[in-house]
């Protein structure tokens, strides 16, 4: 199946000022594909070029180089946008309208027929949890409610591609869970979702693949599972390892950094299981891991648990993006 979004050597330079023109390179030769049916996270620090990329895809901004295709169409082609639902980050809905009135107008603009609008608007308001607020004007909505209304707006034309810019921004934990559930449902329906977000924990929960942009360039892309898996590293929880055993295995076994207990002492003792200690094991391969286990058992160490170490997406993101450039969301 061809990718829903295809980007090749995409470049964008913004120019401002007439007398002393100032040029800012927002995208510098980015190439990537968003496969059909994926929930794709677009990550990066502020100013990385994420929003610029989305704007180019939707024809809101124009590329200065390279090529972007949306369902095989050029950006800005209304035919491609018929299949897209979009929720911008800082949306400005007409606040003198109620949610159904807003959906009615944006539905018309999305080319949704009268019959479909009258059927889908109540359904969507119910789906995003706004059916109780149909008589209330948007000016009286909280940020979370506006976000839900925006999501309903983006879903109105039953899009094949949903582009969401910070979809859970300002939404309470319950609302975030509900939005996440909707995204999972959409994934199950085979829709493609592109999420541009700073909330890495949210992205980690719903996305199957990610791309990390930094300073206008693509730094990494791939599935979250493959990117966050740390190579052959395990956490071992066991009874204290004798010093001579530890010395013999020092190249592949080391105590985990000591933590501070309530009485102020430094210890590597597991907080959840008193009497047990935690170690980091870095064998060359599976056979090496088994050799370590054999040696420990032989020296009388009782093993409680061995778990592979997996980085959180946040850890991975910080590792990949220069921390000095990272602005906390």
């Amino acid at each position, binding site marked *: 199946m061809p990718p829903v979004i295809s980007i090749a050597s995409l470049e964008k330079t*913004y120019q401002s000022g007439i007398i002393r023109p100032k040029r800012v390179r927002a995208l510098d030769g980015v190439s990537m594909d968003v496969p059909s049916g994926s929930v794709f996270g677009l990550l990066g620090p502020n100013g990385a070029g994420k929003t610029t990329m989305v*704007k180019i895809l*939707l*024809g*809101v*901004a*124009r590329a200065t180089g390279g090529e972007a295709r949306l369902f095989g169409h050029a950006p800005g082609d*209304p*035919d491609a*946008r*018929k299949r*897209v639902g*979009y929720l*911008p*980050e*800082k*949306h*400005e*809905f*007409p606040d*003198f*309208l109620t949610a159904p*009135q807003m959906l009615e*107008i*944006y*539905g*018309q*603009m*999305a*080319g*949704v*027929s009268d019959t479909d609008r009258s059927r889908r608007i109540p359904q969507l308001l119910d789906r995003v949890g706004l059916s109780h607020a149909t008589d209330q004007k948007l000016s009286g909505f909280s940020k979370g409610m506006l976000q839900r209304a925006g999501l309903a*707006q983006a879903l109105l034309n039953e899009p094949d591609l949903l*582009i969401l810019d910070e979809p859970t921004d300002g939404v309470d934990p319950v609302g975030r869970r509900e939005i996440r559930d909707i995204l999972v449902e959409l994934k199950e329906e085979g829709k493609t979702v592109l999420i541009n977000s700073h909330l890495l924990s949210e992205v980690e929960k719903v996305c199957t693949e990610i791309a990390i942009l930094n300073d206008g360039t693509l730094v990494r892309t791939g599935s979250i599972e493959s990117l966050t898996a740390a190579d052959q590293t395990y956490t071992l929880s066991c009874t204290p390892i004798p010093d001579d055993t530890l010395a013999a295995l020092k190249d592949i076994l080391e105590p985990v950094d000591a933590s501070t207990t309530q009485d102020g002492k430094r210890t590597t003792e597991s907080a959840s299981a008193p009497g047990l200690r935690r170690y980091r094991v870095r064998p060359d391969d599976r056979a090496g891991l088994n050799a370590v286990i054999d040696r420990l058992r032989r020296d009388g160490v009782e093993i409680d648990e061995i778990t592979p170490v997996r980085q959180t997406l946040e850890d991975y993101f910080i590792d990949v993006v220069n921390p000095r450039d990272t602005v906390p969301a």
Partner: protein
Amino acid sequence: MLPFLGMLQLTVRELRAKKVIWGLFLISSLVLLIVTFALNLDVVDGTLASARIFGAEATGGIDLENLVFAVQSIVAGAAYWLGILLALFASGPIFTTLLTKGHIDLLLSKPISRTRLLTGHVGGVWLTMLGLCVYLLGGIWLIMSLKAEVWNARFLLSIPIVLSMFGVMYGVIVAIGSFTRSTALSLIVTYGLIVASLGLAAVTQITEQLGFVSKAVFLTLYHTLPNFTEVTTIVSKLSQGEPVSDWYPFLSSILFGAACYLIGGIKFYRRDF
């Protein structure tokens, strides 16, 4: 077509939410009510036997036709000056709101071309103003015609004239707004051109006093900028049932407006949001 109609509807609703538009509607309604109930004409065999305004007998020999023309002229003049100035004040911010981040990108994400989006917006503004013009000027014409049985059909031409001149000045807002996204600057330039037209209207008297170069500059401005003030004469003549001998100020203003829409449209089409 559906996205275009959606844009049209959005603009009309945005204007409907403006208090100034409701103010214009209420003022128009008040004028229509006053003319309907406070002006009583007693017409016998096609001539005015007596006229009462707010119950008081109008003294002096008043010609029926002149009375109708005077009422229509006053209302059309007020609609032209006060109406257009207030309508620009109400609709000016609508265009820059359209260009707000978070609003324009959402609209552009819909399956509608930029040209249609802008046309839908301008169409919505014009449609609203047409509604107000027809309500006030058409209403006055109908009431006075029924009361006096003087059917001055030429007066109805003042509706497209008022609407067109509003459209010309709104074109300035579109052009300036497309470049600057500033409501204040758009309105300042628009009102500035209206004020400048007061000077341009005295073209004959002023050019007599000027030297060769300054005269050429003044005449260039006269032929280039909208002749908002001079068009008042056309509206006034139409209200009084007189033929219009010189349509040039109106036509040159229309050309200026078309140029503004063209420049604004090109910028709107090409810019990044």
